[in-house]
Structure formats: structure tokens, C-alpha cells
């Protein structure tokens, strides 16, 4: 199901203007174990529910931002720049 996404810079646009960047997750420290790096690279929460995720406004301002979206019905609760809320 399609939906609208609000770019913090450009406002509400069709989701097809954006590139999906996947769920937001923390990057391990450089000296973390290879197990932690493997999880970071491959493993995903893939929640059926609310997740924090990356988006890129490819047909607009070319900026990355974050969204909070319910993956069950694609309703978007909030969008914001990195740093505005905890990742």
C-alpha cells in the first residue's frame, strides 16, 4: 500500500519520491567482536509494528532523514533529522 512521507525539508510527498534506507540500527564500535559486526551487517529486527528507519529524498532535496512508521499499515507517525531524536 502506498503512502505519503513528510520530508523535513520539502514537506509531504509521495513515497515513490524517496529511497528507503532500511531500519535504523546502531553501528558497533570499531573494536567490536566479529559476531557484533555480523549482526550489524546482516541481522534485522524486521518488526511487524513501529520501527525507526532511514529515507533519502531522491527526487527532492537529496537529504537523508529518519521516520517512525508502522510497517503493518504504513502509517507514518513522525519524520525528523538525525540527531533530533535518539537512534
Amino acid at each position, binding site marked *: *500500500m*502506498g503512502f505519503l512521507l513528510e520530508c523535513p525539508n520539502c514537506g509531504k510527498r*509521495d*513515497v*515513490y519520491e524517496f*529511497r*528507503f534506507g*532500511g*531500519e535504523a540500527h546502531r553501528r558497533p564500535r570499531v573494536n567490536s567482536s566479529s*559476531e557484533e559486526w*555480523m*549482526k550489524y551487517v*546482516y*541481522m*534485522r*529486527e*524486521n*518488526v*511487524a509494528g513501529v520501527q525507526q*528507519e532511514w529515507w533519502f529524498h531522491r527526487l527532492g532535496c537529496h537529504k537523508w532523514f529518519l521516520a517512525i512508521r508502522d*510497517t*503493518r*499499515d*504504513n502509517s507514518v507517525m513522525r519524520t525528523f533529522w538525525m540527531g533530533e531524536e535518539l537512534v
Partner: protein
Amino acid sequence: MRALFRKEKMWQRHKLKPRYDVVVIGAGVHGLSIAYYLAKNHEITNVAVLDKVYLGGGNSGRNTAIIRANYMTVEGVHFYSESLKLYEELSKELNFNLLFSQIGHLSLAHTDSAVNGLWRRAEVNKALGVNSRVIWPDEIKRMVPALDTSDRPRYPVKAALYHAPGGVIRHDAVVWGYARGVERHGGEVHPRTEVIAIDVKDHQVTGVRTDKGEVIRADCVVNATSGYCTTVSKMVGVDLPVVTHPLQACVTEPLKPFLDKVVVSANLHVYVYQTDRGELVMGSEIDPYSSYSQGSTLETLESIVAHALELFPGLRHVRVLRQWGGLCDMTPDYSPILGEVDGLKGFVLDVGWGTYGFKAGPVSGKRIAELIATKRTPDIIRPFRLSRFREDRLVSEKGAAAVSH
């Protein structure tokens, strides 16, 4: 005479028993075929297949049912060609007409690098005994006269991989045939029974709990839930490298028969074939964002149709009748995840089927059943173990499976 028309129930309504040897979560082609081969090949019949909706209500009832073995890696070709061979015998095996039409499968290339990819696949296929070869526009035109092979389109057709044994099957019949087979051999199918928790004791699975409050004991629980596989694995704390994306397809009104090949173009992100009833089935790659909502979108429909018209300009007046979607469990390497997981006994995965798993129902069912019965992982599925991500031994099939499903 009366007997000829006697109605036979394909499966019965059962009361859940308190204990099974094996509980399979998910009654799609994978879950059902596991239960079938457990009974048929290994005489393990105290088995229940549970599904939260109706049988085949997941992707097994939503896919476009293309069967082929022309993959890219040695591991993939071995695996999918065993499945194709099982499908060739399956109508007889299940005594149920599955309408398997091996009409042949064409993967088009419109760029030089795509042609190179086809060469590589053709050579791997031939070396492993799979019938595949690269053909050129004159031969393509003879096989598919309606296809625009001129140099008029923006991306003219340069070559194709022709895979003669590929084709399409009636997906619902496969589901029903296996379900009937399970019941005839003494197993049980339980639609409308959702698993909400899996019990574990001392690193050993001990059973499942359902949405109706039943507690079922079982030392072996199989996750065969495709798009929902992460939600089920989380019940036992097993991480999966899976992201769920919708995949859509559509079907047109029926036309006179004019197309007797499956035609796929990875460059144009589209595939088209004509059913026995004359409708055109068309599809594309996954939606560009993850979601558990399987509604369809106008954007995808427009993209499918626009690209289909580049291939078949003569179709511009044809009307689309239906469009739908399913939820695909995408893995990083476009290969499935099969077998046991480290550190937890009795939990078996048959997931990561993404956009390409219908064709693999028979081989995974047979081999996962063998794994459960013998407690040894068959060689043919060993490359697809979950630990390959830790071992950095991915089986990359993206080049052969992103648009071709």
C-alpha cells in the same frame, strides 16, 4: 455412477491433540510438503501443520507460479533442478492434476552486461545438466512473434536465456494436493490456528501455544511462515537476516492464445506469460520499501504495464482485471535459509523464500523431512544454513532471482 460424483473432503476438521512429533507453522507449499514427505518417506505421521489463515492464504496462493531451474550458482542450480524434477512427477505422485505446463522460459537481456550474465548462467546450467542456452533476436522472434525485437525500443532485446523445461503450474492445486496427501498419510492440517508462542526448555524446543489458548507439546517445530518468519523466529530469540517486502502482480482479461513462453526482462523489471485461460499474468520486483501491508499500489501497476508494453506494444488496449500483493521474506543473497540453528535443538527453519520459493516447495519439503527424520543435514541444503552469514559463505542468486521469480 453416483460414486463418480461423490464429494471427497480434501482435508478434515480435527481437534488439536496435546502432543505431536512435529509441529509445522505455516500451511503454504513448504509447510505442507514437509508434512507430506515426513509421512510418505519417513513414516512420521503424528504431525500437525498450523496456519493462522486458510490453507495457501499466504504467498503460496498469491504467487505467479513460475517453475524453473536456470539459476546462477552451483548450489542453487543443484537445488532448484531437484525441485523441478519433483514437480514433473508431482501430479502422478499426488494423483491430482496440477496443470504443470512446461512452456519454456525466456530471460531477456537488453545490455551487454546482462548478456554476459546470461552466458554465465547458461554455462553453469549446462555443466550441471540443466537445459539452458543463449539465443539471439532472430530465434527469439520465432518463439515469441509478438515480442518487439526491433531496435525501436529504448533498450532493444539483445539476447535471451532459453530454458525449455521452465513453465507454470496451478499453485492452488499444489497446495491442495499436498494437503490431501498429508491427511491421507495420517497427518493433520489445522487452518485458522495461529501460533503465538514457542516453548523452550534447556535449549530444546518443547512445544507451541496457539491464539485459542491451546498448549501443544512437540520436540520439533518448523518455521515455514515466509513473510512472517521473523515474527516466529523472535518467539525463540533467533535473529534472521530477513526484511519483509511486498511483491505485487496483476492479471488481464483473457485474450486469444498468442504467447506460449514465460518472458522475463530483468533490465525492464517485468515478466509476462499467458495462462491456459488466455489471461496475461504480469509481475515485477519487490516494492522498494519494507512492509507487512500486502495492499497493491498504482505506482507498481503503472510500472509493470509500461514495461510490458515496451516488450509487447500490441497489448495497449488490453484491460487489467486484478492486482494483488504478498509478503516476501527477502534475504541478503536471494537464497533461502534452511535447517537447524546453532544452540537451539528442535527448531527448524524453512524460510527466506523471498520472491522465488514456490518452485522450491517439493525439494525443501523432501529434504527438511529427511533432516528431521535422520537428524542429518542433507548435502543439497547444507549451503543454505543460517550460519552461512557468520561464515561469510553467501550463495548469491540476485542476478538470477531479482525479477525472475
